[in-house]
């Protein structure tokens, strides 16, 4: 049996997969959209990551599912919540991590971890998508941009507007109102990012703000959000091009641990 393991993270908007080699080197990864058929999305995520790694399914010894769709990873041997997986993944990339901020499609999480990447405490947004990736999607749409454009644009703002809404639907109305008043979209975007940073900080304070802080999830790829968090915290946050994959990476690491425990 090989020591190759995979982690499949089925989030609310994207499916991610990471394939890890014996030496915990990332051999392949994938990122795709989540649609109606989550089971198929999970299978596709694994297939794509295996293709990226030039491996076949039979070469993978252990698969772990995580994310909201973790129970749909039927071909896996283990399920672990994404809270534990982001903590483990962040610890793997940035071993000094003590607080993980994960902003995904519909969830924002603050996860306090220890030196082993285990969860010490966590807090999440309540039943509301304000302050999540979905919030940015809706507001980008209202301004006529693709969500991938808004981070860089927000960095060009001269004077960020104040976005007060704590509700995605109301924030969209607020954005429209600023547009009709002639505000520069870049300033509106900077205001939106600042409002999410403010909400996120409040969540982080519930578990205790402790450096190092690692930013994970899809929204961590948004440079505007990274800067807004940095400004609100007054401290830098760790970000990596792999940040969006940290849930899947953490899942693979949990699988590796389970595999080793089984072997011993």
């Amino acid at each position, binding site marked *: 049996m090989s020591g190759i393991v995979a982690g499949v993270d089925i989030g609310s908007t994207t499916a991610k997969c990471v394939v890890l080699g014996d030496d915990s080197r990332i051999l392949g990864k994938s990122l795709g959209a989540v649609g109606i058929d989550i089971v198929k999305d999970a299978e596709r995520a694994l297939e794509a990551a295996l293709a990226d790694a030039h491996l076949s399914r039979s070469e993978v010894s252990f698969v*772990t*599912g995580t994310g*909201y769709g973790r*129970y749909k990873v*039927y071909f*896996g*041997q*283990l*399920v*672990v*919540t*994404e*809270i*534990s997986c982001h903590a483990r993944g962040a610890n793997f990339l940035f071993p000094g991590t003590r607080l993980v901020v994960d902003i995904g499609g519909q969830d924002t999480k603050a996860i306090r971890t220890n030196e*082993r990447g*285990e*969860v*010490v*405490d*966590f807090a*999440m947004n*309540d*039943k509301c998508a304000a302050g999540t990736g979905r919030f940015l999607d809706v507001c980008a749409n209202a301004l006529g941009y693709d969500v991938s454009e808004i981070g860089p644009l927000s960095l060009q703002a001269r004077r960020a507007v104040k976005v007060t809404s704590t509700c995605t639907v109301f924030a969209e109305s607020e954005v429209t109102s600023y547009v009709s008043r002639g505000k520069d979209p870049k300033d509106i975007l900077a205001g939106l990012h600042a409002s999410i940073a403010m909400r996120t900080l409040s969540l982080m304070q519930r578990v205790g703000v402790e450096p190092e802080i690692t930013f994970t999830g899809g929204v961590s790829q948004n440079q505007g959000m990274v800067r807004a968090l940095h400004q609100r915290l007054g401290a830098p946050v760790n970000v990596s091009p792999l940040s969006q994959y940290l849930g899947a990476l953490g899942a693979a690491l*949990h699988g590796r*641990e*389970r595999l080793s425990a089984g072997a011993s």
Partner: protein
Amino acid sequence: MSEAVSTLANPGEVPSAFLRDARGLQRKLVEEYYSGLAPSEKPHRPVAYMLVGGNLAEIVRAFGYDVVFPEIVALNCAIKHQSLDNILHAESMGYGLDVCGYVKNDLGLQDLGGKTSFGQIPRPDLLVCSFSGCYIYVKWWEALAESYGAPLFMFDVPYMREEAPRKEDVDYLVSQLWELVHLLEKRTGRAFDMDELKRILAESRRAEDGWVEFLRAGRLRPSPIEAYFESIFYMFPINVLRGTREAADFYGVVNEEVRARVREGNLPLPEEKYRVLVEGVPPYTNYRTFWDFFRKWGAVSVVATYPKVGGLFDRGFRHDPARPFESIAEYSLGAYVNQSWPLRRQIIADYVKEYQVDAAIIHGIKSCRSFTAGQGDLRDWLIHEQGLPTLYIESDHQDPRYFSPAQIKNRMDAFFESLEQRRAVAATARAASA
């Protein structure tokens, strides 16, 4: 840190083999109670509406009243998935989203005619607002009084900031109890019978002894009871039928069953991995689903605060036929939600030790601030001051729209994963030092 997929068969299914005769008897008592309330004969026995916390059931029973607890009617609606229609009706009457689910369920139900799947809820002949610590409750009773033209007796109970009740507070409540007696004499045309009250109080005391014996079984390792989920069933006699022989006898059956469980090893779970304290009102609308979230991790609720809303009997209080009015006054003062947060914290800290608790789960409810406000601070206090792993989750006791299974499950799974990790690390450290 994780769960094997193979253990996830039939999520949502709660095996209940450990529940035997007592559960059947409880069902029978509930059915008899609601069918007995139906005003099939005229004139029917008078009905008093009362709130559970600090209630004065013994006094009105001494005058031949039946007691209806709209909170309990509401929770019965919720557990039978009938609360949302009533709540939506109340909202159509103008009650806002943030108004207490108990209140909206009851007012909606009343306006729709009081018919439930478990019986017809009779109109009140008297309204006794026995817990005045919640402003919404006061308004609820005022709305009912206006709607039915029934007299409203407002029982003013001072908030408890010290563990022992003050004499002046007891005297103040006793004076109000006599006012209630005079009102009841006037309404019924009957003279107050102190001997009858003492007889009822003796039955109450007998039920309280039995109830406490059941609750304390959670101290055993492994626990033969589910102190939160199972107590939800057995709270009915102590809250609704307290003062009757049936209630007192019921706990004899319960405790015999619990002793048999210990003898036969018929326990809530095959393996008790985590001994959990639960604080807060249950999500009645999804109670079995919620229970399953505990069971899949081997977590048994060995102690809970919610079953104490009808009285902190396990802390030593008993109704006392030798001191009838004084003990009723002390009972009302000692209602769980009438305790200040430092007192509630102390109760919980004592439970953690007495019941050898591994972790606490706090379930806050959106629509009740009087129970829930302060639970965030409680969580922090338990984690930082008591060193107890604690999870706070939120939904509602009545309104199913606030129960999001995936989100609650995710939080609970992550919480138990972290407990599992801590145990694994501690075991490794122990092995290394051995």
